[in-house]
Structures are given as structure tokens and as C-alpha cells.
């Protein structure tokens, strides 16, 4: 009985730790988006060749942002600047940034 309880506790703890690592921390994300502001924080800032506005990312949906950053990181989504940014981010960084940006929905 005691053995079963121990095992259950262990499993619950493992599951909790797993979900904690997977979930983003918006407060941590706030400090991690500093670099993003160089382009995404300048109203009207444009990408060059081809010429178009860099997207508005504050308030964007979290899972989409996670998928986008991962695709930049692996090179599946091609963009030289964003590839470099994506490569510098850990899995946890991506989760945190997505949590913070999505929390800014107006």
C-alpha cells in the first residue's frame, strides 16, 4: 500500500515537473524579449528585400509563436535574422517568450 502511494506520488511529481518545463513563464519572457524589440518594438519597422513590415507580435497566440520560433530555429521557416535569433533560444526561452507576448493581447 505504502509502496503504491510512493509510486503514485513519484509519478505525480514527474508529471508536474514535466508540465512546469513545458509551460512558459511570462515574467521570465519579459526580460527575454529585449532583443526582439530591436525590430518588433519599432512601429513601422520594415524588413528589407523584400520590403514589408515586420509583424506585430505583441498579443499573438502562444502556440503559434512557439511553432514559428521553433521553425526559425530549425531553418524550416526561412529568414536569416530570425534564424539567428531562433538558434540562440532554448526550448524554455521559446516557451517564456510566447507566454509573455501572448499575454499582451489588447
Amino acid at each position, binding site marked *: 500500500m505504502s509502496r503504491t502511494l510512493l509510486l503514485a506520488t513519484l509519478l505525480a511529481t514527474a508529471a508536474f515537473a514535466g508540465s512546469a518545463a513545458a509551460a512558459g513563464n511570462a515574467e521570465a519572457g519579459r526580460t527575454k*524579449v529585449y532583443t526582439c524589440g530591436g525590430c518588433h518594438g519599432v512601429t513601422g519597422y520594415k524588413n528589407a528585400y523584400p520590403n514589408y*513590415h515586420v*509583424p*506585430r507580435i505583441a498579443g499573438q497566440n502562444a502556440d*503559434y509563436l512557439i511553432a514559428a520560433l521553433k521553425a526559425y530555429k530549425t531553418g524550416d521557416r*526561412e529568414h536569416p535574422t530570425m534564424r539567428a535569433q531562433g538558434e540562440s533560444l532554448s526550448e524554455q526561452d521559446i516557451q517564456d517568450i510566447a507566454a509573455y507576448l501572448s499575454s499582451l493581447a489588447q
Partner: protein
Amino acid sequence: MQTMRPIRTLQILGLIAALACSAAAAASGNLEAGKQKSTPCQACHGADGNATDPQYPRLAGQYRDYLEQALKEYKSGKRKNAIMAGFAGSLSDQDVLDVAAYFSSLPSKLGDLHGHLQGQ
């Protein structure tokens, strides 16, 4: 040297003006046409362009030229997404302009990062 007759000059000017006008119409999107064409998009991106399922991006109020670029890249295959490849592939260049114009015109929850950075 023969002087150009006024009537002929006027005709040529009229033609140039008409061409310039139609070129301008083709280069920018039409909101009303975009609204009609956006029906398939709404299933994932929301009727108001603010997707509630977090896996899909909010399009309402996004920059028009960014939306055009995204659709062009899905269409060409540069940006890879199985669902979007199907939809974007069926759009003409004018459809892309119209749909982008429509979503960018909708009330937005999006913004840039100005004022949201540490120390601001």
C-alpha cells in the same frame, strides 16, 4: 515638324490615365472582395480574425504587407505548412491582396513591442 493634334493628344492622355487607374486598382486590395474571399480562413483564424485556438495566428490588424508576404510564401512553398499551402495555392495575386487588406482592417488585439520591454 508636325504638331500633334489636340484631339489625339487628349486620347493618348486619357488612355494613360485609364491604364494608371486600373494598375492602381490591381495593386491594392479590395476590402469588400476580401471579406467575401475570407470565408474559408475564418474556420481557423476566427470570424473576426482573432483566432481563439492558440495554435493559429491572429490576423486581425496585422500589417497588410506582412500578410501578403506570408500568403505569397505559402503559395510559392517557401514557407511550409500543409494546411496553408492548400489554401494559399488556390488564391490569385488579386485574392492575396484582397484578403490581406480585409484582415489588416479588422479591430486588433495585436501591437508592437514598444512599451513592453524591460525598462520601458
